[in-house]
């Protein structure tokens, strides 16, 4: 190459390519299952430590995937009374409760016009496989209102294929607003105590205003209810990741 002067130009090496390793980025994003975080109380932390050891032991043997409320899961359990001693249930996770070894999650599905919910224990040895079929977070932490929603929102095909999801991507949030059956509902979901964002309320304005009468705006500022789990989470995350690596 000849520059504008006429002399041969100095060799410019090409710019180094910048490699963004998305797998490593993902490892930095860490997920701690909510049942590891101990509840606030006066119990001896030794109890939670021993429980966590057992939970890590079980996780080494059996893979419990990362899942949130709103994911569609397929669970195979060992059942002495089933046909092939194995029963499979597909459903959307509507609630994750319990702490420690008694952690549970509820799956809901509508089969043949009948709504069915099964509460599974995460660390129950009868569970043989948990597959995540669809990764999708919803606007709420608790989807119990699906019981009063139209059945189409809780129907999931039993033979649905797992939807592929790349590891490094964020879990997508489905901003679906669900339509409800006519009232009466099992709980008054329009009340602010449930703080539900995922329902399309087709109630008259008067009813929505009346529901706001039960709002407790001082609750979020109540200092005695604060439970800051960030430091506890960091400690437990280190403990759990070391335990799993061994």
């Amino acid at each position: 190459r000849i520059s504008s002067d006429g002399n041969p130009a100095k060799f410019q090496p090409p710019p180094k390519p910048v490699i963004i390793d998305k797998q490593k980025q993902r490892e930095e994003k860490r997920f701690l299952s909510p049942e590891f975080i101990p509840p606030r109380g006066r119990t001896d932390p030794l109890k939670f430590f021993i429980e966590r050891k057992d939970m890590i032991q079980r996780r080494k043997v059996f893979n419990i995937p990362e899942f949130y409320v709103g994911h569609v899961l397929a669970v195979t359990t060992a059942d002495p009374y089933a046909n092939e001693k194995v029963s499979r249930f597909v459903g959307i996770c509507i609630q994750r409760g319990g702490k420690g070894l008694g952690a549970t999650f509820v799956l809901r599905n509508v089969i043949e016009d009948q709504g069915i919910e099964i509460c599974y224990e995460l660390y129950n040895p009868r569970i043989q496989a948990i597959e995540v079929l669809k990764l999708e977070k919803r606007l709420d932490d608790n989807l119990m209102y699906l019981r009063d929603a139209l059945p189409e929102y809780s129907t999931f095909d039993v033979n649905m294929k797992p939807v592929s999801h790349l590891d490094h991507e964020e879990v997508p949030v489905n901003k679906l607003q669900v339509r409800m059956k006519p009232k009466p509902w099992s709980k008054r979901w329009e009340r602010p105590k449930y703080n539900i964002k995922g329902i399309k309320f087709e109630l008259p304005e008067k009813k929505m205003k009346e529901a706001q009468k039960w709002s407790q705006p001082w609750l979020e500022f109540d200092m005695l209810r604060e439970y800051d789990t960030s430091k506890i989470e960091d400690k437990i995350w280190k403990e759990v990741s070391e335990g799993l690596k061994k």
Partner: protein
Amino acid sequence: SVMTRFCAGFALAPRVLLSRSVFHSFLSFASITGACRAIQKLTRVRVVDNSTLGNTPYHRPPKCIHVYNKTGVGKVGDKILLAIKGEKKKALIVGHKMPGPTMTPRFDSNNVVLIEDNGNPIGTRIKTPIPYILRQREGEFSKVLAIARNFV
């Protein structure tokens, strides 16, 4: 206020029955009691087999009038006495709204299968899923399990 709610319920009745012609719409009508205990006297139940007695519409839903149990509360696998269409019939509970032990299914309606005194089912097919727990008592319920199509 209960009367007005009932009247409102009946006003809605033809629309509800036309749009969703499922008989159990009777159950969640003007007012529902939340699930207290599973199935006891005067609970309205839903018959899930394909018998004529269970599926012909009547102006009153089938109600439990007796539970054949030491406690008056019926769970999955208990026999009860139903009052349907002005007659008494025995039935077997195959699912209730009350949550049971973990790993067992909880249904959105109280399901029941009509049965004779000797245990023979009256219908010939059960489309709704039945819990696997019933297989434990295969001897008593073998004929009911034989006509069941889906299990949960």
